[in-house]
């Protein structure tokens, strides 16, 4: 059981990297849970999955319905069932979307139930891949606990790596007990590769992989085609396979 969170500055292509990682790992004989924990992201689109309801919807359902339920309803078991209802079961992986953020009421109890439920669900998978915004929400609230590795996606810019630096500090201050942090440089061109490697060395980041700018990926993106359909021998997928190997997944 290994939990990997993928994050990075907006626009760096972290969701594309997450999608490609999930796509590659799912070809191996392992059970995978993909979690979309970024309200701005579109992991389901990247994977080519249509999602109707989210965990946020179910948490809201609990808040709306709680006074109407039979008084002795076991709410943990009810919410657990609701979470399973929104779990998209794909042929080789499952996908869970966290969805809408909390409203103005008190979410202490609902979130506390959710923590226990998520702990239980995660134990069922060999690998969990979480696509999360740079603010690390859901991780900070401990809805998803015990993340083993953090993978920060950066593009060819210095700012991307500075974000990585900030995320490292944030993870430390949140006391997330992450065992390892890696950086993946995405959309890398022959012109900026040496510079990125230099930046990473300066900031003492473990540059675990370099995903080259891939015409085919750009075309898929432009046409809105799911990256799950990218051929294994495309440049981006070859680079992804390399990352998976290096991380020992």
């Amino acid at each position, binding site marked *: 059981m290994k939990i990997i969170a993928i994050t990075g500055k907006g626009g760096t292509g972290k969701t594309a990297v997450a999608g490609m990682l999930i796509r590659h790992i799912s070809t191996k004989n392992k059970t995978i849970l993909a979690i979309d924990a970024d309200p701005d992201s579109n992991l389901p689109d990247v994977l080519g999955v249509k999602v109707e309801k989210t965990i946020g919807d179910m948490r809201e359902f609990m808040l709306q319905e709680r006074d109407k339920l*039979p*008084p*002795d*309803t076991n*709410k943990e*078991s009810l919410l657990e069932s609701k979470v399973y209802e929104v779990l998209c079961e794909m042929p080789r992986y499952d996908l869970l979307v966290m969805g809408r953020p909390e409203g103005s009421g008190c979410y*202490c*109890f*609902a979130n506390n139930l959710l923590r226990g439920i998520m702990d239980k669900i995660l134990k*069922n998978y060999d690998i969990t891949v979480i696509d999360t915004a740079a603010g690390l929400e859901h991780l900070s609230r401990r809805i998803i606990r015990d993340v083993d590795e953090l993978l920060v996606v950066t593009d060819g810019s210095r700012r991307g790596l500075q974000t990585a630096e900030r995320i490292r500090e944030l993870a430390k201050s949140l006391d997330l007990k992450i065992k390892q942090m890696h950086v993946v440089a995405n959309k890398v061109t022959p012109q900026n590769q040496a510079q990125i490697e230099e930046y990473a060395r300066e900031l003492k980041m473990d540059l675990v992989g370099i995903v080259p700018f891939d015409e085919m990926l750009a075309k898929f993106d432009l046409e809105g085609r799911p990256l799950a359909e990218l051929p294994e021998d495309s440049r981006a997928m070859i680079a992804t396979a390399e990352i998976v190997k290096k991380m020992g997944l």
Partner: protein
Amino acid sequence: MANEFPFEISPMFEGERVRKDDMFVELAGPKSRGFELVRAAGVDEIEDGKFTLIGPDLSQMQEGSRHPYAMIYRVAGKLVETDLEAIVERRNHDFQNYIQGYMHLNQRYDVWVRINKDAIKKGLTSFGQIAKATMMLFKNELSFIEKIDATYITDPDEVEKRRAEAIKIYEARDARTRGLHDEDVDVFYGCTLCQSFAPTNACVVTPDRISLCGAINWFDGRAAAKVDPEGPQFAIPKGEVIDAIGGEYSGVNEKAVALSGGEYSRIKIHSFFEYPHTSCGCFEVVGFYIPEVDGIGWVDRDFTGIAPNGLAFSTMAGQTGGGKQIIGFLGVGVNYFRSPKFIQPDGGWKRVVWMPKNLKEKIKADIPPDLVDKLPTEENATDLKTLKEFLEKSQHPIMERWTKEEAAPEEEAPPEAQAAASPGWSMPSLSMPAGMPMMPMQFGSGDGGVKLKFKNAKIWIERIVFKKGK
């Protein structure tokens, strides 16, 4: 014992999920129908361990198919009674999840079961094996069960027919559950989930008082405390009754000292004015005393306007939260309005003089019928003047308190205090209830400044802190 079954049985399999890829069959669940039911029966009615199946068995089911599914158990024993049915029924979820390769979710008419292919490969062929294992666990774990039998149904028509009967049983059970009151139980539950931002707050949850966040009722407390007694929800033995009306219990007081770090030592669960329950900050609704009419107004989190006392929810919430006993403000959950003990020492519903329209609509069915039209909202009253006018015009029962105060002879009159926090307008003097400590007052709000008038008052103040507002 367990090796008579082709599967392992252990709590370690709890939370084991059967994925669609690995699933042999799906039973009941969101895309089909089913239920689980436990009934108490006479010892002579039951043949112990008997299993009946109505409909096709596992071995007759197609891989990947979905079927309706009902599980009915009858239990008997000297100590078995109807009231125990729900508690026993709930354990079906636990015990069935001990079975390797068998996933049981949810409860009652929402059950959802999956069996994985591995279990079938290892020799699971019949629901009889599942039922026998479950019955064995019931008897092992719940020693008061002397005899048990089981009927499982997979026939669609029979499931429908029996499900309709089961729903009637659940409804009757719910009616009994709703009739459970503070005096019927020996244990309340405490919650310290919010102590991170209100370190001295301790929520006391009783059958007649839901947590002020509205999320935790007495049954939730019981369920959580059972799973993790050291967790944020825990049992509080009631102890001796000190004040049945106010809701003061020796057990709760003892716990109050410990949980608040000595901040307070008495709690009256249903009282607004005397040793009131503290608030973390998560309350759905805040009650506020309006001395000018000697009544209590309520404002909920969703109301963005200004209450007749000139304050917004957020301002009052700031005063109420923080885990202190604040006289004059009280945080509650919406469901507390449905409690028969709702602020009963303070006059209950008769003391309620204002609430926002949306909140009123939400709980309309639970407001005493003769009060519904007499209770103003922001449409009828926006300040103290219009509030008093409306209350007078509608003959609100709060007026009885006014006449009583006016009729009281001078020498017996309680200390009079008049606080006019609203600028430019003041009510004719009405006294505070005897022995009532002062409510916290807003200083410096509004451009009319502060006017305080005390007559024949004894005031003892330990500490006053003035803070400059932002």
